C-alpha cells in the first residue's frame, strides 16, 4: 500500500495523468482476490500482509463455501451462490488452511506475514 500511495503522489507531482491512471488501476486491483471456479480456489495459496482483506468470489455454477479448516473456525462463509462473494480481514500472522465444507476436496491456504 505504501508503495502505491507513493506512486500516486509521485504521479500527481509529476503531473502525468498516464502514470496516475496506471497507479489507480493498480490500486483498484490491490485487494487480493480468490476466484472459486470449477471446484477449485485460484490462487490456491495466497501470501498477504497482516491487516489485508481477502475476498473470495464464486464464479462456479455450483454453490461453495470458504471454511476455516482449523477447529476454531476463525472465518466461515455462508453458502456462496454463483456471483456471491465473501471477505475476511487477516490481522494475525500465520498460515490459514481453508476448504469448501460442501466439497472438502477443495482446499486453499492464506499465508499472513
Amino acid at each position, binding site marked *: 500500500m505504501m508503495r502505491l500511495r507513493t506512486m500516486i503522489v509521485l504521479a500527481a507531482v509529476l503531473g502525468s495523468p498516464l502514470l496516475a491512471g496506471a497507479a489507480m488501476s493498480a490500486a483498484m486491483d490491490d485487494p487480493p482476490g480468490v476466484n472459486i471456479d*470449477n*471446484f*477449485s480456489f485460484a490462487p490456491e495459496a495466497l501470501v498477504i500482509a497482516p491487516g489485508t482483506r481477502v475476498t473470495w468470489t464464486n464464479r*462456479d*455454477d*455450483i*454453490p461453495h463455501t470458504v*471454511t476455516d*479448516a482449523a477447529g476454531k473456525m476463525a472465518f466461515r462463509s*455462508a*453458502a456462496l*451462490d*454463483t456471483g456471491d462473494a465473501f471477505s475476511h480481514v487477516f490481522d494475525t500472522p500465520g498460515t490459514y*488452511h*481453508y*476448504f469448501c*465444507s*460442501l*466439497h*472438502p*476436496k477443495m*482446499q486453499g491456504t492464506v499465508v499472513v506475514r
Partner: protein
Amino acid sequence: MTQTDDIATENRRGFLKCMLWAGTGVVWTVAGGVPRSALIGGGAMAATPAGGDLTFVQISDSHIGFAKAPNTDTAATLKEAVDRVAEIKGNASLLIHTGDVSQLSRAAQFDTAEQIVKGAGMDTHYVPGEHDVLEDDGKSFFERFTKGAARGYYSFDQQGVHFIGLNNVQDLKSGGLGNLGQDQLEWLEKDLSGRSASQPIVVMAHIPLWTVYQDWGWGTDDGAKALSYLKRFGSVTVLNGHIHQVMQKVEGNVAFHTARSTAFPQAAPGSASGPGPIKDFPPDRLRTVLGVTKVSQIRGSAQLAIVDTPLGA
C-alpha cells in the same frame, strides 16, 4: 462363466450409452430378498412382479433452484420424473429421494420440490444432500423431510425389508469425502444389532458409501465402518445419488447403485476437469435419451446382472 462374461460386456456397453442420459427415476423390486431395478419408462417395467413383493421407486438430485445450462427448468424435469413415477408405480409402496432436493436449501425450493413429489401420491422418504443443509445446520430440511429424525438419519421396516436412511453430507473434513460421524455410526450399529441376518436391508445415502472417485470426493470417509456392520446380512442394497449417473458395484452380499439426477448430468469420473454439470449437454437430448436399467440376480452367483439400455437414439 460365459454368461457372466457376456453380461459384463453388455454392462460396459450399456453403461457407456447410459452416460448420455439424465432425468428419471428407478423402480426397485425386492423379490425373495433380491432387489432388482428398472429405469422408469423402460420396457423392463414389464418385469414388475406380481403382488406380495416389495416394490419401490428411487429419484434423486432434483436440485430445485438450479437454473443454468444444461437445464434452466429443474422443476419441470422433476415434474416429468414424478409424472412417470405416478404412471408406472403399480403396486409400489414407497418413493425415495436420495438427496439434493434443492440447490440452496431455500424454503421456496423445498416447497416446490415437496409439492411436485406429492404428485406421485406415494409415501416418500428423503435423505439429505449437501445442497439441502446449507442453512441452519440442516434443521429446516430435517423438520420438513425427515420428521422425527433430528439429524436426518432414521430406519423403518416395510414388508419385511429394513430401510435405513443415512446422512453423510455434514461435518465434512477438509480434504476428505462424505462423512457419517461417530454418533451416526453408533446409532447404526445399534439399529442393526439383534436383527436377523436374513432380513433384506436397503440403505439410502446421498453421497456414495463406496469410493467411486476419490479426486472428486465421490465416496464416504467412514463408509467402510458402516458397511462392516452390514456384512453379516444376506442381502444389502446401498442406494446413492450425488454423482448424477448410474454406477454399480457388487461386493459380497452388498450391491451398490447410484441413481441419475432429475436435473442435469455430471461427467464420468475423471473424464472432465471437474465434477460440475455437463454444461454443453444438448438440451433436447435431456429428455429423449432416457434409458432402462434392469437388475437381476444370476442364479447361483452373488453377482447382480445390471443392464442399461437407452430408449432413444
